[in-house]
């Protein structure tokens, strides 16, 4: 039986735009399991990113409850959510969002030192992760504007993992990258998942979605269906066929 690390019940999110109510999520209920690479798919405007932000504590739901272990994080204040995020979550953004005024290393250390005051330990962990994603020491000294998109996203992944989060949330991590660098990033995420890191990724890209072992399909704010692809292996054509069939059933 897989361990549930995060769950939500009756999760709803409504936006008000010039007096018009927009119901983006409608009574969503799901559980996220430790060690899974969960992929949330859907058409544009389905509510994928909204669901991701709500689950990760970046945004507060309009209705419903989000539980992390025994804690109901949907009732937390903004500052408490910030503490929750820093201790339990990691984020990889589509736009990468590294801070321009800091070096690559400092971007990672600023996240690490926020949780762990032991600088030596944080630096050691950072160096280890940089090595794992093939970011050289020279690149670590550069500024985000001086490195390539692929390198920057890999730095983003290091920053997300510096505090060994329970879950790594990734919002279209390859969206702003070309095909080859996108592949590198997916390989990196897959590698960490294989080492036990729980990943939740939002994507509308088939190639990215194939990396997940669990696919959730979201349509009009509701989880329409779920598909289990099993453990990822490169060149697994059956996996691709299974996914394609599932998405076709979902109306993709």
């Amino acid at each position, binding site marked *: 039986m897989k361990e549930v690390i995060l769950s939500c019940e009756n999760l709803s999110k409504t936006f008000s735009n010039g007096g018009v109510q927009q119901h983006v999520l409608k009574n969503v209920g799901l559980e996220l399991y430790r060690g899974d690479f969960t992929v949330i798919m859907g058409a544009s405007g389905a509510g994928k990113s909204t669901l991701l932000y709500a689950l990760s504590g970046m945004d507060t739901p309009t209705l419903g409850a989000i539980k992390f272990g025994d804690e109901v994080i949907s009732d937390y204040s903004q500052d408490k959510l910030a503490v929750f995020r820093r201790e339990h979550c990691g984020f990889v953004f589509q736009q990468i969002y590294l801070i321009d005024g800091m070096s690559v290393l400092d971007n990672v250390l600023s996240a690490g030192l926020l949780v762990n005051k032991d600088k030596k330990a944080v630096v050691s962990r950072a160096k280890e992760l940089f090595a794992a994603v093939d970011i050289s020491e020279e690149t670590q000294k550069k500024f985000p*504007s001086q490195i390539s998109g692929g390198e920057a996203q890999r730095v983003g992944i290091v920053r997300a993992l510096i505090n060994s989060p329970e879950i790594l949330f990734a919002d279209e991590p390859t969206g702003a990258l070309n095909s080859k660098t996108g592949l590198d990033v997916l390989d990196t995420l897959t590698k960490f998942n294989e080492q036990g890191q729980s990943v939740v990724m939002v994507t509308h890209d088939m190639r990215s979605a194939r990396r997940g072992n669990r696919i959730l399909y979201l349509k009009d704010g509701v989880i329409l269906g779920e598909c289990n692809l099993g453990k990822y292996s490169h060149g697994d054509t059956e996996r691709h066929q299974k996914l394609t069939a599932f998405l076709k059933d979902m109306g993709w």
Partner: protein
Amino acid sequence: MRKAKGQTVAIVVLILLAAMLLNLWLMLSMDYKANFDRYHDKLNAEHVTLAVDDADGIVYDFLSQTLPDDTEVKEYCLDSCMLMNCTFPYNGGTMNTDVAFMDKQTALSRTIGKSEIVEDSDLTSGIYLPMLYKSADCSVGKTIEISIGSHPVTYTICGFFNSTMLGSHNCALMQTILTADKYAELENLNYAPQATLCSVRLNDISNNLNYRATLKSTVSEHFPNIRMAGCCYDVVVQARYISQMICSGIISTMAFIVLLIALVVIISNIINYIQVNVKNLGAFKATGYTSRQLVCSLLLQFLGLTVIAAIVGFALSYAIFPAINTMMIAQTGIPYKVHFLPLPALISLLILGGAVALSAWLSARRIKKIEPIVALRSGVQTHNFKRNRVPLEKTKAPLNIALALKITLSGVKHNITVCITMLVLSLVVVFSGLMTENIIVDMTPFLNLIVGETADSAINVQTEIEDDFLDKLNSDSRAEKAYLYNSLNVSHVGGVELMATLCDDFSKVNNQSVVFKGRFPKYDNEIAIAAKYAKEKGFAIGNEIEIAANGKTEKYLISGFTQITNNLGRDCLLTRQGYERLGTLQSVTYYINLVEGTDIDAFNEEMKGKFSDSVNGVINVLATIEGVGNVYVSLMTIIVIAILVLSAIIIAFVLYLLVRTLLNNKKRDYGILKSLGFTTKQLILQTALSFMPAIILSTVVGIIVSCLVINPLMSLFLSSLGIVKCTFNIPVVFAAIAGIALILLSFGIACLLSLKIKRIAPRELLTGE
């Protein structure tokens, strides 16, 4: 500008404050003093006035024969009056001066120097006082006790009058008007001897100071040892407008400080605007707009704001001016009607507009360097040579402080703005401390400059009983110290009349700083002379000058330079023996320091009682000083409070602009940090702390440097009064406390202004809202 409403408002407020202060300053300096001349002309007032004892009318006859032939005299007027040294209550203390009592009809009908009743009543028997004295305690219908010589007399106040030359207590001679019955009564009482009041208008007003000396000399040559008192235009203007001069100087300084800060903020704002909007500017340029058009557009925006802010500032200055006017009338005694003055407004607008245009143009010129294609790429260059300041791997500072320092070191413009602001405000704060410590808390240093010498009691006695008087003082345990301190007039041969102060032993005087260079005269052939006069004449210490009095001339060596504001810097110090080479003293004044807690008035009465008619006059010097000083204390208290409040407002607005700019520029970064788990409190702390290094450094340096330069600056400020070297007590404790308060206030304001970070939600950042 519309998008950054808050910042626009802050800039407008700063320009508005600068406009208000500039206009106030120009109104005070261009019209307020000119008001004296308007009244002077309106009342056909004299340039020189002299009251001379004249029981037999011989002085009247002499002047009637002499003045018509005097080529310097344009017109003159001689009237009867009674002259006596009087003491009366003033502003919580007492005042002592020579008073010319005039009959009401005579005073109001003089051809030269007539008086003008400004407040009258139905009362037909009593006294009219100069309007300077009008207060809650001194008003129509109330009574006032005046000591005429040593005789207290009570009068009912019938009203108040205005006299430009004789309407103040600090001009050597003051006039009061008695109703006919009270005038006759005083004549019968014989408390004040009959005198002749001579008022002269000259062909050349600039010669008034010299003519006063000439006229006095002429009279004393024909009537040796005759008692007289008088003043002249220059001395009266200076004496009556000290508060205007001080106020005007302070307001002008604050105006330029606020303007400087406003300009620094505008420059910072424009440079930031260009950086943030480089893409838009690039797009404009790509579509064909020239740099000149873009620069002009920015210039017009700021000039438009300046005009609007200036108009509001001028209106505010007119709203505040009546209050300032009320404060200053208490010292000048000349009524002033606040009215619209176009010239100060125009000059203020030109100064503001010119300064804003220049600073806006200088900072907007960098638009010229924007290349459209580079700008459209948001200024991405091939090479980036940024340094990674405060590297987190190496720094020992805690994370929040390290991140705050990163912000500090990346914002050079902000640091410069903060430094300039805090440096000038430190000077302002130290000045406030100086005023507080040297005027409000303990007036002695200020009075030492303005008045010269202070003591508890001053007693003038006939020289015949001097020895007995000194024996009595020496045996009186209440008298701590007594020394001769006698003032009379002498002339510098080839120069002007000087007020000479005689002393038997200058080591006994309380104010040892009156001679700031060289030393006090010790021998009978030595003289210390006013530094301002010495500079005019090119004298140096050791030079020999000729002094004349009583028809005799003697030479003296200059032993030192003095600085006292009395007599427009035309004074000197002589030893008693030094004066006695020129003449004999008929009466002597002794300054006496009494034991703490002694009743000064009781002591004076006792002395008067013991030596009766041989005592010409007694003065409670302390009470007199309190009366004069209270005017300055009230004025300075209001000025200090206004300065401190203005400083707090300036800090608030400058920080508002800087924090808002920072938050706008760093909104993305704050969103990222929040998404990583930084709390709002941590980010507020980082933001506020990022300003602190510049604030702390510039405040500390500013306070230290200000403490070192404040006395020289004050000397410059008071140089027109004859002051060359200020030795005010430096308010070290006040400055230290004020510096800490400035730093804490800045930190508090920065934290408050950073609360906007609360509204930055990471979600908005990620969805691009």
